[in-house]
């Protein structure tokens, strides 16, 4: 019989942020109940113990025994990592889950860490719906309007924007509002409507664009130090895996539920104009993304994972293009 485990878990997003941080709080509440006290999880808010970008190293070296983040944060260490949290024009949540759990996704995910020399076990532990495409101070009617724009934009989506003449920067969360308000940047991307609301972008940037082509769904991961993981009983491991799988369901539900309220307020009370990218711009974003993919494929692991996902998606399309009623 294994000993009770205390998972000390630094997290990458504040537990007060809906959908970004709330799922792991839910997991930490469920684990002791599900396991009859055999597993406890203590959450450390971002930076309290270790900064978000340091979580992987901390878990791998056993300085903490677990951590909650997104794989995209390790893109500087392993370019392929970005794919496992989100990529531009990537899958929606159900499709993402299909590839992850029944396709090769999770196997490749774990393999990436193993091959990368990281001593961690990974569990997808939340999955959330699309982000908004960003907040702009002026309307954007064509890619011409994007040229010379200063925008805060994260990750591979930022590369796409650069290709279209946007000069992107990575201003940290706390400074975005100030920079946007004072015009140091003209536009910003951050997260979903219900989360962006908390940062107050609607006060100064009145054009909110959709769809969030750069981030259609986002997977969050629970990393557990492999020695800790191997030291657990089968039952304890199952309790963690199952609770994380339940959290995936829970977070899809939560993130789908909370957005319209914020959008309604934005449109009706806050004078925000909610807009949709025209088809031709979506096509331009997409072809810029194809260019970025070609550059990223230089990394062999990125190429392998990307091809696997693409192969899966091509097959999936057979089904999805016929099975679902077109959204309108």
């Amino acid at each position, binding site marked *: 019989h294994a000993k009770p485990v205390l998972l000390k878990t630094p997290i990458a997003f504040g537990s007060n942020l809906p959908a970004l941080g709330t799922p792991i709080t839910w997991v930490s509440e469920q684990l002791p109940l599900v396991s009859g006290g055999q597993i406890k999880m203590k959450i450390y808010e971002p930076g309290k113990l270790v900064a978000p970008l340091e979580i992987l190293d901390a878990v791998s070296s056993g300085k903490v025994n677990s951590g909650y983040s997104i794989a995209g944060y390790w893109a500087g260490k392993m370019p392929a990592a970005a794919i496992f949290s989100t990529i531009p024009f990537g899958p929606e949540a159900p499709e993402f889950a299909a590839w992850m759990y029944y396709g090769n996704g999770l196997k490749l995910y774990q393999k990436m860490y193993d091959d990368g020399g990281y001593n961690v076990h990974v569990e997808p532990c939340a999955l959330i719906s699309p982000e908004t495409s960003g907040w702009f101070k002026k309307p954007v009617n064509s890619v011409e309007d994007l040229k010379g724009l200063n925008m805060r934009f994260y990750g591979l989506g930022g*590369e796409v924007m650069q290709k279209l003449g946007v000069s992107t920067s990575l201003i940290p969360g706390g400074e975005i509002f100030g920079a946007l308000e004072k015009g140091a940047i003209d536009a910003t991307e951050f997260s979903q409507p219900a989360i962006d609301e908390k940062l107050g972008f609607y006060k100064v940037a009145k054009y909110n664009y959709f769809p969030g082509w750069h981030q259609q769904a986002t997977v969050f991961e629970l990393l557990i130090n492999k020695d800790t993981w191997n030291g657990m009983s089968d039952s304890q491991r199952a309790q963690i895996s199952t609770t994380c799988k339940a959290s995936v369901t829970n977070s899809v539900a939560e993130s789908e539920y909370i957005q319209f309220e914020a959008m309604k307020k934005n449109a009706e009370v806050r004078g925000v104009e909610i807009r949709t990218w025209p088809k031709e711009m979506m096509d331009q974003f997409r072809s810029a993304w194809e260019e970025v993919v070609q550059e990223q494929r230089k990394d062999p692991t990125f190429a392998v994972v990307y091809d696997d996902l693409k192969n899966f998606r091509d097959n999936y399309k057979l089904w999805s293009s016929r099975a679902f009623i077109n959204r309108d």
Partner: protein
Amino acid sequence: MNNDLRPPSTVLLADAVDRVLRKSCEYLSWVYAILIAVILLQITLRRGFSAGLIALEELQWHLYAIGVLFGVIYAQATNSHVRVDVLQSRFSARAKSVTEIVGILLLAMPFLFVVFIHSLDFVAESWRINERSLAPAGLPWRWLIKSMIPISVGLMMLAFINNLYRESVLLIRGNNHGN
């Protein structure tokens, strides 16, 4: 009578080491002048043109980081770290030396040792994966800036060993002269 006119606190070797550290840091302090230039350049580029800014943005904190890390050594070599010296100013020279020695051995060295040892792994890990900026347009060679930690902390320890030597010499010297 001693015909050496230098103040009795002079410990030649220790002073020489401090002087080298101090001089090197003084050259290094130009990173802040470069930092001013880089920020002004970035503002100009952003307002005037729109060029690759992320690398410049990152260069800013790289320069800042080098400045503050080695600034710690400079502060040490020029003895300007903040102290609460209300009581210390009433200590005898001997008591001061003893406090310094005990402080270095009990407080500073264990702490710096922990940081130093772990920073070696930290850099090795970054080197192993040839870590670069998270932003594709950002700077490569993350291990380079990370390696500033063991280098500067190592020099801090050196400066402390130097201090330890100085204070020990002073203590012994004080004893020899009987006061």
